[in-house]
């Protein structure tokens, strides 16, 4: 049973691969394509239930990884949960959105494959595994963005995404090769040990090669998380891709980039922190501000949500320069809540697309009369994104921003307070454009005829609503899990207020 012992930790991925492979075949068997979505939900729900049992109930524990390439811990489990949850929401919303398209089996197969790639990134302990994961997820997402081959917008989005993604992969790979050249290993904690260890006195912590690699990696992963100035592709791709796919990209794919960034910057090259902390802090502030400022002038809801998720990436980036376990917990927590509120918001847009309402901000006018459920859910998602209590977004922003305040009270760290202030001011700014959508839905007059949202989409949106409210009102178990996840970063200050 040696093989089994070694594969035990790979259960989620195996399950996903199996279903991803049979999905195109099932496409030929079932005439009702809705069944495909139900089949795709099987592995997602199973993994979701197992992960919840592991993280929250403590009734099940996966074995430690049997390979040096991957590491299973609470951090990777939490990310797996995020990806799977977003996957569930996306799959629930898809059948009605793509009901007229061909090759639906491939669609679900690609969604599952993308989730495999993301989970590998979250589990990777080695830069090679990390890169493989990035590529699996990336290639699946390119194909997904171009799923509507005959639609010009969709094809354009896929092409753009492919070119940018390819470029960012090249940068990442180049950075990995530099790291290997300097440290002689691609193991992330191994690189950290080499950079910090006495055996390698010849590597200064300001070694230009290390810094060059760091910059290249920041750029490469910066594309993935749509960090300013590498954000240009995001609005175009999110706008052009089928809306559920946009949700997957914004809520899950982006989070994969953060998992990689956290691992490399806070484990691999933590000792060089003094060299990059200010630069990353400035990029964080720039990202949130630019994202919010441009979002204000958008007239298409998907572009607006794209810029809003650029801004949200800026908030999460706060965790890097602050670099305490508390900050990482805040970052991970915000990743978790953002996954629900952003995918929820995209699914509302998808639902509107499915009932032929359109995706301009003006199309939201009078939505509260046409579909009270959609309008109410969207309001909750947007208020949560803006950080209004008692919703999930407030709880996670609270932890995230307060981590900057907390560290700023340490001697010599007082500049970190500006991260919190920038975050807070940006939250106020973001409220302006979110409130405009809410205003359109509730206060403007629009078409009167009622619309009926397909039940599966309702289920997906309702799931996100429940999570946004649940995390907002009872954040304690989620904060605890994020705290455990952050404790994987042993090099960071573990102080918890």
């Amino acid at each position, binding site marked *: 049973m040696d093989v089994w012992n070694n594969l035990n930790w790979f259960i989620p991925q195996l399950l996903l691969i199996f279903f991803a492979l049979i999905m195109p075949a099932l496409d030929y068997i079932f005439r009702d394509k809705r069944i495909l979505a139900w089949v795709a939900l099987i592995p997602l729900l199973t993994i979701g239930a197992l992960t919840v049992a592991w993280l929250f109930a403590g009734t099940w524990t996966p074995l430690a990884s049997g390979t040096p390439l991957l590491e299973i811990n609470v951090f990777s489990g939490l990310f797996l949960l995020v990806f799977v949850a977003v996957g569930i929401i996306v799959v629930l919303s898809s059948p009605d959105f793509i009901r007229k398209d061909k090759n639906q089996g491939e669609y679900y197969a690609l969604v599952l494959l993308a989730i495999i790639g993301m989970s590998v990134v979250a589990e990777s302990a080695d830069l090679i595994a990390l890169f493989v994961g990035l590529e699996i997820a990336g290639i699946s997402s390119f194909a997904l963005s171009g799923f509507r081959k005959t639609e010009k917008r969709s094809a354009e989005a896929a092409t753009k995404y492919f070119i940018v993604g390819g470029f960012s992969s090249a940068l990442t790979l180049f950075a990995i090769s530099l790291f290997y050249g300097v440290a002689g290993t691609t193991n992330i904690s191994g690189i950290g040990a080499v950079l910090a260890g006495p055996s390698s006195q010849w590597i200064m912590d300001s070694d230009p090669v290390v810094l060059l690699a760091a910059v290249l990696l920041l750029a490469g992963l910066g594309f993935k998380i749509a960090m300013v100035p590498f954000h240009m592709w995001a609005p175009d791709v999110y706008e052009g891709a089928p809306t559920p796919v946009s949700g997957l990209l914004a809520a899950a794919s982006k989070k994969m980039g953060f998992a990689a960034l956290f691992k490399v910057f806070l484990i691999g090259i933590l000792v060089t922190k003094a060299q990059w902390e200010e630069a990353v802090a400035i990029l964080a502030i720039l990202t949130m501000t630019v994202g919010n400022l441009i979002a204000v002038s958008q007239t298409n809801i998907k572009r607006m949500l794209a810029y809003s998720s650029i801004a949200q990436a800026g908030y999460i980036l706060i965790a890097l320069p602050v670099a305490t376990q508390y900050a990482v917990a805040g970052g991970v927590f915000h990743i978790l809540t953002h996954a629900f509120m952003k995918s929820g918001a995209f699914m509302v847009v998808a639902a509107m697309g499915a009932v032929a309402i359109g995706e301009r901000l003006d199309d939201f006018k009078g939505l509260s009369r046409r579909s009270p459920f959609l309008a109410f859910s969207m309001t909750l998602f947007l208020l949560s994104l803006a950080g209004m209590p008692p919703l999930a977004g407030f709880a996670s922003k609270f932890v995230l921003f307060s981590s900057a305040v907390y560290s700023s009270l340490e001697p010599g760290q007082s500049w970190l307070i500006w991260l919190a202030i920038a975050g807070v001011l940006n939250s106020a700014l973001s409220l302006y454009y979110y*409130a405009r959508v809410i205003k359109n839905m509730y206060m403007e007059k629009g078409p009167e005829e009622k619309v009926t949202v397909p039940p599966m989409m309702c289920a997906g949106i309702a799931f996100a609503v429940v999570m946004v409210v649940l995390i907002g009102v009872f954040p304690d178990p989620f904060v605890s899990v994020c705290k455990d996840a952050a404790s994987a970063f042993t090099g960071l200050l573990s102080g918890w207020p």
Partner: protein
Amino acid sequence: MFEGIPIISIIILMPLIGAVVTFLLGKREQYAKYVALGFSLVSLILSVLVTLAYAIEPGATSTGYHDGNGFFNYQFYESYSWIESLGINYIVGLDGISLPLFLLTTLLSTLSILFSWDTKLRPKEYFGLMLILEVGVLGVFTALDYFVFYVFWEVVLIPMYFMIGVWGGPRKDYAAIKFFIYTHIASLALLVSIMAMYFQAGVGSFGMEDIWRAGQTEFTKGFQLIVFAAAFFGFGVKVPMVPFHTWLPDAHVEAPTAGSVLLAGLLLKMGGYGIIRVAIPSLPMGADAMQIVIAVIAVVSILYGAMLCLAQKDLKKMVAYSSISHMGFVLLGFATFTELGIVAGVFQMFAHGLVTAVLFMMCGVVQHKCGTRMIPSLGGLAKKMPIAATMMTIGFLASLGLPGLVSFAAEFMVFASMFQMWSVWLFLPILSVAITAGYYLWALQKSMFGPLTDKIDTTHVHDVSWYEGVPVGALIALIAIFGVFPLAVFQYIGPAVKVVTALLGGG
């Protein structure tokens, strides 16, 4: 009476359940008002019972007594763990400062719901949002944990945004967004200062009492000054103080009548309450350093607000600006840091809540019956609506500080405390009394008395409806009662304020 019963939570929960029931009514929208009135009435009755059960001289035997040991002494104290990993507990309780405002909240909410009895536009949402607003305000006045306080503080924003934005006047979009953004930015300043206090205290708890206790030794003078400035800004925008007052006239003019009543009667009080509950006790040295600044802002608010009233043609806008002036008295009372001044400030909040509710309701009546609130278009309405004219006259007289009505006691005490502190400088705020009398009497004369106007069609102007008359009548009765027996409220406020002044003396 309420031994072992989490009565405060029940009172907060009532409107929340009511709101959920209201939203779930579906097509039976016409029942929304009954549900809303029922649930808010239950809260009102329970809060009156709580007031009766509240011990003025608290001892260990009082219901839910919590000895703050140098901080405030609370009754009906409840504490449950909420977010353990961050040291956040759900703590609520009442003391002499929060009790009058707590009672005011349930009272004004119930009366506002009654006053909106004929709301035809989306009544389900309207009454549901009013109940959520009540939940938020009740929470703010009872929360004893900074995190919980902030959550309730923000909860108030959203229903008010919708009330202005959906049921408001012609420029509702602008007013709603301005209100939202303005007060939200202020809230965020508050949030950052709460975080700073939490971490500086370093006790791993958001409890007001814990942070206060740790702050005695941990908060340096420089820290207190910065954090107090941020918190004071956060609360001051809500009060509102000049120069951060510009959201108020817009919001008031566009809001529906009941919205204005709650906005002026309750939301402004949240600002004042925050200053006396959070900012001053936790950061006494910071407050001390900014005493003159607070006093100057208060006096400017009093005078500037009053002068702006003189220039208004819209009855409601005039009342809105008068709120700025009258809330200035609250700040001025606090700024003296004397027991007399702070008691007067708290009492002025209570008094202003009652009086301004009458004024906005009467503006609503005039708008409702005549179709306009523009003073030049009105005139001689007393002939058509004698009861309304009487009520409006009483309201205006109460607001300008006629002895025997509730505001007089409050303003007189503020003046007295200011004289103790800064002697002859009293001549500045006291000028406002003359200005106030001027604009109120002028407005009354132009709109209610004199020859009947021919600028609007007055043939169909009727007197107040029952659902308008009852709330105003009830408020006027309270204004008279507490005007004659202000001690009925002072006896509650006094002991709690002694604690604040002791803290200031210690700082």
